């Protein structure tokens, strides 16, 4: 075991994993995080705490992770290179290890232009692939990025994101291969609506044997309304929402129910895709729906390993 985290144990034992996203509040209320933790703890193996998601300032991911641990939930610490240079990233990684955080997801981060501080200076000292390499070197070599050794263990289960729906399509698998080479133990993908494209991407992933070198968790975004479907199709870069989904949501008498059904159908289709080792549910501002989705997708109870 690299980290001994619950997520790692489940994936390494060959079982289908379930993770979800837990967005921290735009203020210091610990109850908000703890409530989400209590709500999701029995239906998920670990919860991702987002890091100033969409470049909007929120409670730090690290604090959110600690609060989740207090209610007995295993966190995944999301970290973006947009806001921290190599010193801050490494300092935070040591701190996370000290606090018992065992999963980390290494990301570029949405550009600051999209958030609530569009005039901020983006750091981008290193990129997400270099970040993965850095975490792996710290874990396996006990060395900082400058080659200097440190004492003590930073046993992280290292995660990365992959977006099969961004361009150029053919190169997306190469980029995944680079992330795996850099140290990604697990992958959480962008939300999947375009199953055909995802299946095509997975074929290319298997052709390069990448599904055997990393655990791929397929991303899901439950949609609440036709407005949300349209918004994601038109405004969220790197997301592909087929017209058929938008129309289905538009025609639905009960859009929320339709969104749940779309999500459940997607999970059923994903279960059939070779090389998928779990799902990652990103129910932005709709965490309440996650227990039902996990239950009805036949993924309960969660394994104890």
């Amino acid at each position: 075991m690299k980290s001994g985290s619950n997520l790692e144990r489940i994936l390494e034992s060959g079982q289908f994993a379930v993770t979800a996203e837990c967005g921290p509040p735009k203020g210091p209320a610990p109850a908000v995080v703890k409530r989400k933790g209590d709500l999701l703890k029995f239906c998920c193996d670990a919860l991702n705490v987002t890091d100033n998601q969409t470049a909007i300032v929120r409670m730090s991911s690290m604090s959110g992770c600690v609060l989740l641990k207090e209610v007995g939930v295993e966190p995944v610490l999301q970290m973006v290179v947009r806001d921290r240079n190599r010193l801050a990233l490494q300092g935070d990684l040591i701190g996370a290890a000290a606090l018992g955080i065992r999963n980390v997801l290494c990301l570029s981060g949405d550009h600051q232009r999209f958030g609530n501080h569009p005039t901020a200076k983006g750091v981008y000292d290193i990129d997400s692939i270099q970040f993965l390499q850095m975490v792996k070197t710290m874990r396996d070599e006990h060395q900082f990025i400058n080659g200097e050794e440190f004492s003590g263990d930073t046993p992280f289960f290292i995660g990365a994101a992959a977006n099969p729906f961004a361009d150029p399509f053919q190169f997306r698998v190469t980029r995944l291969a680079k992330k795996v080479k850099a140290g990604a133990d697990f992958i959480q993908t962008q939300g999947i609506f375009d199953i055909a494209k995802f299946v095509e991407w997975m074929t290319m992933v298997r052709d390069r044997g990448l599904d055997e070198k990393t655990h791929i968790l397929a991303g899901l975004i439950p949609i609440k309304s036709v407005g949300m479907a349209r918004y994601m199709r038109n405004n969220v870069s790197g997301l592909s929402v087929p017209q058929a989904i938008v129309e289905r949501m538009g025609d639905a008498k009960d859009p929320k129910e339709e969104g749940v059904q779309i999500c459940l159908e997607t999970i059923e289709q994903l279960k059939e895709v070779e090389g998928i080792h779990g799902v990652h549910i990103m129910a932005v501002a709709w965490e309440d729906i996650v227990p039902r989705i996990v239950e009805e997708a036949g993924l309960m109870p969660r394994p104890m390993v």
Partner: protein
Amino acid sequence: MITLEQKKFEDIEKMTKGCGRLLVLGCETCAAMSLAGGKKQAEALAAAIGMARKMSGDKSEVLYDAVARQCEPEFIDLTEKEVAQCDGVLSLACGAGVQLLAERFPDKVILPGCNTTFLGVTEKLGVWSERCAGCGDCILDKTAGLCPIARCSKQLLNGPCGGSMDGKCEISKEVDCVWQLIIDRLTKLNRLEMLEEIFPVKDWSPAGHGGPRKMVREDLES
């Protein structure tokens, strides 16, 4: 070239108000190429400032001239007599030119008439775009002659990020994704395998993050 754009006239008017006899000094290299601060633009701007002053009852004179390059002391020295007769100079050069003037004439008010925008190229008349970030350690050999430091919004060295769509950057449909361009070019050159390797972490110290930069060529120093 270094690209420049002239500041808004109302800002220039405000900045030059009450500074007495003024010399608008153009720069005939980059500033002229940018059609922002050459001799022609200096003449037009001096006339406009003069007119505005007249309207507000300020009778102090506004002169204009230009030198080949305000970034070289030899050319600055050519303006010595003219500057001596003025109270202030509005330089239409880049920030480097403005500062060399200020160094050379410590008792004069020196003002910037332009914003220095970037290191770029002329795409066509009236359109310039950024190409180089002056990072001090050129990597164009590894990126198919297209610079991700200057042209990727996140300065990724292992791009493209998940926001690349239809060849465009996530920040705007007006901005090309330079990583798409790099991949297209390497595909054409049959060298795409270059991108399989992980690009190492960059040393940003020659990019200005190691403090103000200076070059010394001992073989040329007198």
